[in-house]
């Protein structure tokens, strides 16, 4: 196989099983699995067990679950998995802002199989949890070194919940100082939408800064937004455009001068691991997504863990319990009167923490730096290749290097051919690549697409990706309708409406689909 633009494009067809919905596989009387029965003596003592339920609280009609034999269920799920393109199947350069890296199999095999995690109950006596608590404690030390923050909580169940945790800490901090008039936060339009949303859930009003021609909000705009009502500043950096805010410490200083706290969204920290830390920028809080930057897999969208980090002054507000170490034994400290309380059950998503621990232990400090170096190298290389494709432009910061991701635009292609980013996003599936991420809403950059070839992808992977985009752009100039009607080689064909708001078309469950008679709606072209 040749490399570069002359490389032969992959002759791909996605698995297409035309697989039934599980309900359509039901054969009355079949069983998928048998469950344990109570032993004979138990039945003698306890009787049928269910007679103790008050009559009006017994289930009278069984749930209308399907009845399917086990081989068919296995085949069903295996087919559905074949109709899914995870990182194990295809290089996922497509989903920028959320780095999609390789999740080492060794960590998965240990964490999903070892009874020292799978069969552990979270309320076991702490003496019987020493291995897990040691990993939690050590992982906290690692993240302190990586960020320069002083303490971390691993309780939040995802990045957005970690932002919410940080917003809650902010709220508790200002309340503790009698400054509850601080009811506003400031963020930027290219920061992840969970920043404004989680702050709003915590009760804050949100001020959003827009970019200037550099792709960054001006420092003057930031200063103008600050007041005695500002509680916090929440920002992603590099922002979703891949542009690093080089004045970040000045923004943080301005916020501090106004009495506000600053929270750094490091969900995707790929560009800065071992290169730059929250501490040197002056941040008071930060968070990392351990299921992302630190290699735990995405699992179609979770299980996840957002590690929330704070400086010493804010530690007392972190969720309970905290893992402590007395030099011999690890403990869970639940007695912390200033704590915000809890955001999730127990001590968080332990398997995700274990995978992140394993990854950091394998790489060490120099390995983490190599992650950042290769991520940024890969992105710059891909950017160079993609910029050569007709129809592609890159907004903002002309002549300046981006870091680990780039927000591109098909604006020119759309003007010249009518083919837009949503069309190309569908067509790309025909080449065995994951649909790319356009951008968060609103689309400030027109016809956006955002790529991130993180450290997991080889030069050959990146070359192939660029070659596919070049091929599709060529198709758009030659035969725009062809691209607009894609995909052709995917599991399913083009979906006319990917966004549904009308009540009579909403079918979130199979029973709702049947109730609304959507199975009987005549299809265009049918008799």
């Amino acid at each position, binding site marked *: 196989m040749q490399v570069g633009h002359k490389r032969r494009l992959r002759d791909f067809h996605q698995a297409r099983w035309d697989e039934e919905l599980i309900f359509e596989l039901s054969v009355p009387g079949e069983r998928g699995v048998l469950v344990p029965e109570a032993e004979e003596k138990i039945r003698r003592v306890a009787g049928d067990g269910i007679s103790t339920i008050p009559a009006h609280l017994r289930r009278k009609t069984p749930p209308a679950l399907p009845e399917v034999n086990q081989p068919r269920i296995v085949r069903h799920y295996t087919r559905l998995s074949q109709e899914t393109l995870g990182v194990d199947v295809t290089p996922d350069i497509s989903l920028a802002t959320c780095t999609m890296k390789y999740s080492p199999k060794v960590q998965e095999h240990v964490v999903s199989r070892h009874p020292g995690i799978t069969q552990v109950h979270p309320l076991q006596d702490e003496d019987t949890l020493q291995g897990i608590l040691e990993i939690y404690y050590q992982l906290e030390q690692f993240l302190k070194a990586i960020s320069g923050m002083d303490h971390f909580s691993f309780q939040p169940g995802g990045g957005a919940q970690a932002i919410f945790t940080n917003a809650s800490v902010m709220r508790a901090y200002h309340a503790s100082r009698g400054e509850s008039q601080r009811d506003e936060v400031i963020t930027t339009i290219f920061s992840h939408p969970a920043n404004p949303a989680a702050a709003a859930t915590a009760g804050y009003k949100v001020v959003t800064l827009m970019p200037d021609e550099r792709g960054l909000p001006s420092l003057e705009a930031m200063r103008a937004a600050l007041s005695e009502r500002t509680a916090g500043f929440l920002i992603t950096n590099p922002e979703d455009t891949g542009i690093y805010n080089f004045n970040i410490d000045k923004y943080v200083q301005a916020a501090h001068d106004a009495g506000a706290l600053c929270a750094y969204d490091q969900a995707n920290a790929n560009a800065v691991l071992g290169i730059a830390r929250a501490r040197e920028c002056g941040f008071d809080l930060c968070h990392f997504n351990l299921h992302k930057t630190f290699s735990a897999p995405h699992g179609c969208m979770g299980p996840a863990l957002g590690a929330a980090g704070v400086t010493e002054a804010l530690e007392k507000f972190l969720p309970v319990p905290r893992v402590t170490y007395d030099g011999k034994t690890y403990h869970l400290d639940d007695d912390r009167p200033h704590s915000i309380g809890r955001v999730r059950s127990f001590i968080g998503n332990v398997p995700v923490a274990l995978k992140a621990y394993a990854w950091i232990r394998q790489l060490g400090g120099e390995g983490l730096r190599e992650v950042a170096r290769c991520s940024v190298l890969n992105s*710059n290389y891909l950017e160079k290749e993609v910029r050569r494709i007709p129809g592609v432009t890159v907004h903002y910061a002309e002549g300046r290097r981006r870091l680990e991701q780039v927000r591109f635009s098909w604006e020119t292609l759309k003007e010249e051919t009518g083919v837009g980013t949503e069309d190309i996003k569908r067509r790309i599936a025909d080449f065995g690549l994951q649909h790319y991420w356009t951008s968060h809403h609103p689309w400030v950059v027109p016809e956006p697409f955002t790529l991130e070839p993180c450290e997991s992808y080889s030069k050959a992977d990146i070359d192939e990706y660029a070659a596919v985009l070049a091929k599709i752009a060529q198709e758009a100039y030659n035969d725009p309708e062809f691209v607009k009607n894609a995909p052709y080689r995917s599991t399913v064909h083009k979906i006319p409406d990917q966004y549904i708001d009308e009540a009579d078309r909403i079918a979130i469950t199979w029973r709702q689909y049947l109730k609304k008679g959507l199975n009987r709606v005549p299809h265009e072209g049918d008799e």
Partner: protein
Amino acid sequence: MRSNNTVYPYIPNSAPKTKERMMNALGVTEIMDLFEAIPDHLKYTAPLDLPEPIRDEYSIRRHLETLLNRNRNCQDFINFLGAGCAQHFVPAVCDEVSGRGEFLTAYAAEFYADHGKWQALFEFCSLLAELLDVDVTSGFLYDGLQAVATSLRMACRMTGRNEILIPGTVSRDARRVLDNYMAGIQGPQFHIRTIGFDRESGQMDLADLSARISKKTAAVFVENPSYLGFIEPQVEAIGEIARRHGSEFVVSTDPISLGVLAPPAQYGATITCGDYHPLGLHMQCGGGQSGFIGTSGEMRYVMEYKDKMYGLTPTSVAGEHGFANILFERTSFGSREKAREFTGTSNALWAITAGAYLALMGPKGMAEVGQTIMQKAQYAAAGISRINGVRLGLSGPFFKEFIVNFDGTGKRVADINRKLLDHQIFGGKDLSSEFGMMGESALFCVTEVISQASIDCLVDALTAILA
């Protein structure tokens, strides 16, 4: 030191020749030139304070296994801990499904490359809807406590009211999550009021409920089965009181009970919620927790869900199913701070796994597992309460958990549980500080995986410890 010359198996372009070719293509001689956007004074150049790496795969595996071997676990010990995370039967097929690399490593991409993922998630919501007997479900909440918190905020949004009535029997941890989730900048955004309960049965004090409910009440909340294990028999009356005052009736339930217990929607719940960790997920020290919410299909409910929802829709080919985003503007991906609440990555892999569990179990499996649990729990309760000085803490029916009171033994739960560890038994959760009025009490959990021999072993051990 190997430092810069190390080739990392997970970092393909750390191979020096490739790296050099790519740097040449970019016209840079020093890779750090690519980081010019970061000012020098913000760069961190000291070595990171991390332990020496364990580079090879065999050694990292041994290292992890050594650490995990320091934990005791519920395979080697007999476990009676529940309190929000219970040890249930996990069919092998569930592990097979959650271990498929395609599902494990997929993410948020849309409806073509990942059609199978969308179908599996849609099926989970559909299967859960049958179990709950509702038309709409969302299974993408962080855990059961978050599901309760969001259900209650949904009720506040729907009614335009800001007061919530909850039973006094919820856990301290649930209360901590709710207090934080309902808090605001200058006092609570939503006010939580606690309704009294009957000390003997745990049941809600209806007179107190009637006295405290008002036109300010957005929701009346009940857990059934409750955190303390009992089945609340007054749910219809509670729902009726809520309805009379224009309040939503929010019920949190244990989904594995619903083969034998009526689903809340059948006794008047307008919003059903809970945690589906019992449905085919390992405990994982709390890593299997996942929240759900279910309601009718009325738009005033559907509009208030906070997370992404996906619906079945036609494609351009007749008869082919595709999937689409439903009411995207509800979510923070659609409208940032104007969204209902924030959303993000939560537990989709567990949703797929729980879907496989419900498909495997079918209606008969769910009825049978509920019955087995109740038989075993009742057998255990009977055996334990025959021990001298030991009695059940609450009267009335329970599902899989029940309170054991040790006041008559003169011993503390903490000491009893410590001694049970010597018998390789995890005793019930100590309630003595959380529910002080219940004295020296523990919450025991018995599920379908606890054998008669294990229960007998517990009774013998307790008898010996308390003798």
